[in-house]
């Protein structure tokens, strides 16, 4: 097995034994990047200098991620390193400060190889909305990696990094993880600091890890979760050691399959693969029952009011005054604002800003924003009620496997790629996507496990068990 195919825990063992050095690990990953990046194009920027500086400072550190080459989605602030959000608007923007997660990874000894590609301001499900370029799915380069954290998922799948961080507002970690055959975890809202994550929809955004297996996911979670005084929505409590949950045991675990999800007409191979995986959990002792999530059918509608509403406000600061792109048509302030935003944002971002502005406008607020918030309350209650009786809810991560680059032209069709993931963000609960199999085209199928608030442990335990049973996660892309 090549180093670039290994997981964090495998590499750590080799480093601990002295078989390999951190320098060699980074070198192996940079070689891999040199070999495949021109095909996959996971990164917006590579940060070799930063990585070398981090390696130099590593000797005296024994962090849990010591020497691990990681990628950061390009909406996570890195001091002095471009943080573009995949947008022309921030093409030249270098933050003067680090996101809390950036510091946490750095303190744990991680080596930053680069900033990964994404849909502009995390708006999209294919990474095709990046201002810079498309990222290709490492399993088949004609296919999209999913999005918006498509660069992070592709980089992990292609072995360009051992792990990466993404952000998930409506499925942006889980859906690309599903398309790229890797593990993506969206933690409970409030368990990972958002400080330094460039906001898309503040009440939904959450940072999480994309890794090669569940064990690495738990390791990354140990590093990034925790209360942050810089984020008022970060929950102040004790966070567990997530690796304690890496046990092969689902006996007596109660699992719900939401009828409303499986009733939707979607890809049969995906459905069968997920149901087959569930059967295996049942065989291992889990109790599986059909459950109902009645509010789920309105989740997507509510999401496309709430997320754009918040985005319209969050993205208003890109006005050309202080940083970022500024139009040359700046003869007066109104013109400067208008042209800067007209030229600096791509079509999907503009679409959502307009949607959100409309939804918050006087006279429409009650009909849209307020109603969407009511739906949100119902969906939360739905989940809360289910989790009184069930440990986990399982569904496909996405209704299909990866689609071809350029295939989806209709934005609404694209929005449907997030139909199973969006309700999770609306409710603020945690969920993971792990590989459940491959379709006939050889593309990975993702299975989603949803847990109650701060139920990350249960999710990791079931996911770890299923990963062992299915034993497919060692399969690596051929590039």
């Amino acid at each position, binding site marked *: 097995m090549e180093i670039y195919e290994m997981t964090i825990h495998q590499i750590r063992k080799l480093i601990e034994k002295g078989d390999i050095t951190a320098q060699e690990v980074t070198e192996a990953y940079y070689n891999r990047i040199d070999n495949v990046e021109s095909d996959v194009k996971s990164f917006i920027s590579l940060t070799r200098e930063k990585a070398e500086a981090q390696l130099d400072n590593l000797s005296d550190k024994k962090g849990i991620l010591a020497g691990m080459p990681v990628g950061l989605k390009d909406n996570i602030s890195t001091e002095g390193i471009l943080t573009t959000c995949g947008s022309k608007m921030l093409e030249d923007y270098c*933050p003067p*400060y680090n996101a809390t997660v950036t510091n946490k990874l750095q303190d744990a000894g991680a080596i930053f190889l680069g900033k990964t590609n994404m849909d502009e301001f995390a708006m999209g499900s294919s990474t095709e909305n990046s201002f810079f370029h498309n990222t290709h799915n490492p399993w088949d380069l004609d296919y999209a990696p999913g999005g918006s954290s498509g660069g992070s998922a592709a980089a992990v799948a292609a072995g360009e990094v051992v792990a990466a961080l993404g952000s998930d507002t409506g499925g942006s970690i889980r859906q690309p993880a599903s398309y790229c055959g890797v593990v993506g975890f969206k933690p409970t809202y409030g368990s990972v600091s958002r*400080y330094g994550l460039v*906001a898309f929809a503040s*009440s939904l955004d959450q940072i999480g890890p994309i890794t090669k297996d569940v064990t690495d996911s738990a390791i990354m979670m140990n590093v990034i979760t925790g209360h942050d005084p810089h*984020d008022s929505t970060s929950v102040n409590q004790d966070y567990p050691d997530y690796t304690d949950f890496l046990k092969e045991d689902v006996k007596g675990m109660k699992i719900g399959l939401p009828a409303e999800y499986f009733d939707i007409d979607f890809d049969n191979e995906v459905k069968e693969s997920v149901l087959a995986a569930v059967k295996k959990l049942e065989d291992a002792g889990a109790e599986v029952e059909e459950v109902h999530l009645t509010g789920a059918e309105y989740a997507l509608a509510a999401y496309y009011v709430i997320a754009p509403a918040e985005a319209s406000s969050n993205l*208003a*600061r890109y006005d050309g005054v*202080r940083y970022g792109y500024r139009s040359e048509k700046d003869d007066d302030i109104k013109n400067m604002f208008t042209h800067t935003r007209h030229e600096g944002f791509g079509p999907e971002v503009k679409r959502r800003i307009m949607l959100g502005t409309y939804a918050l406008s006087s006279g429409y607020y009650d009909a849209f924003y307020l109603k969407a918030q009511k739906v949100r309350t119902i969906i939360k209650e739905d989940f809360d009620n289910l989790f009184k009786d069930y440990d986990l809810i399982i569904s496909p991560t996405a209704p299909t496997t990866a689609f071809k680059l350029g295939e989806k032209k209709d934005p609404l069709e694209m929005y449907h790629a997030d139909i199973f993931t969006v309700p999770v963000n609306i409710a603020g609960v945690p969920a993971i996507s792990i590989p459940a199999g491959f379709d006939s085209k050889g593309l990975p199928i993702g299975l989603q496990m949803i847990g109650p608030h701060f139920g990350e442990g249960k999710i990791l335990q079931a996911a770890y068990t299923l990963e062992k049973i299915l034993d497919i996660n060692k399969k690596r892309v051929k590039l």
Partner: protein
Amino acid sequence: MATNYETVIGLEVHLQLSTESKIFCGCSTSFGADPNENTCPVCVGLPGTLPVLNKKVVDYAIMAGLALNCEIAEYSKFDRKNYFYPDLPKAYQISQYDLPVAQDGQIEIETEEGIFNIGVTRVHLEEDAGKLIHEGTIDKSTGSLIDYNRGGIPLIEIVSEPDMRSPAQARAYLTELKKTMEYLDISDCNMEEGSLRCDANVSLRPVGQKELGVKAELKNMNSFSSVEKGLEYEVARQKKLLDNNKEVVQETRTWDEKLNKTISMRGKEEAHDYRYFPEPDLVPLEISREWVAEINETLPELPREKYKRFISEFSLPAYDAGVLTGDKEMALLFEETISYFNDPKTISNWIMSEYLRLLNESELTVSASKIDAEGLGTMLKMVDDGVISGKIAKTVFEKMFETGDRPAAIVEEEGLKQISDSDKLAEIVNRIIADNPDAVEDIQAGKDRAIGYLVGQVMKETRGKANPGMVNKMLREKVK
């Protein structure tokens, strides 16, 4: 027949709170720093930054709410007010929309027309914006610079009910509000420096009509007198329109200090849609009753209460009570002085005449001046005890004001002690009588005024130190 109109005024007052740090970050709020020195990624709204509420700011807002007799919310929250302007780095202001910290209060004011209760609709928290600095005049400016030092400084907005019926009442309300906030020590309340800003809503309606008339919103009044002048102008303008059967248009008008008139800024249709919605980056603010009770304990006696008490407890004239309580420190000095010299009216007279004169001349505040209660009290007692004369006291007080020295030490050092030794005085009086036979004759002829002349001569001889009562008595005895 001309209709009689009633004036209806409501005020919106913005106050900068004098906390050490800003409302949502740790930056200093100090005045006079270099441009953009007091800024950080949070208060310039860099991508990815998040606000964290400064608890002290909430303490201050609760204090203001309690002092204005408001209900303090148990559950309050922040909202975003969205609009584009270069001084607003996030393009939204974090403010409070439907659940302010405090609501439903009132404040008592007094004008020459009487005593009125003015309703306080709400007190809410928000962040201040930065400051634009234009090269040259705004319309011909070649460029603008932005100083974000002010951005993120905590503000409270105090909104009144439309309860004021004249510009004079509006001014009295502002004065009372300012005094109250100064007593709470939560704001500098300096209108010229912008730590207190006032917008006014003004309309007219026929006397007896309940429904409000069409209002104009008045902005850019930079002093108390410009608030009053602006309102007077606006009332007259609207009255003239109505008298000529013309309509008042709902609009925002700006007060032009130089032209002494209000000018239309924007109409109703150009009004912003701020698209308020709950700030998702902050958790709702829960204000426990214990917290409110704790703050309530720390509230000082407020100026209006103090004013009434000074009248009842010390039998001061209303005018004196008003002047003394106009400044918290002065009121404190007054009350403390009583424990050294128990004659409130004399203290009041002294403070209002000598002390205020010296303060004005030196442009000092009470707290910056060197006069303290012990010094003032013991000095007044020295006058009362006949140790120094009233006239000498003025000299002593000026020295105290200048140096902060104790009055006894000044009297000692400068040899200002009053001469009350009758032998010594008799000697001088005899000499003066001998030197002024004409005056003596006048007195003997019944011209009493000449006594004054002789007393003056004795005082001159003693450089003011002779005990004037004794001199007077002695002269009368000796001349008759």
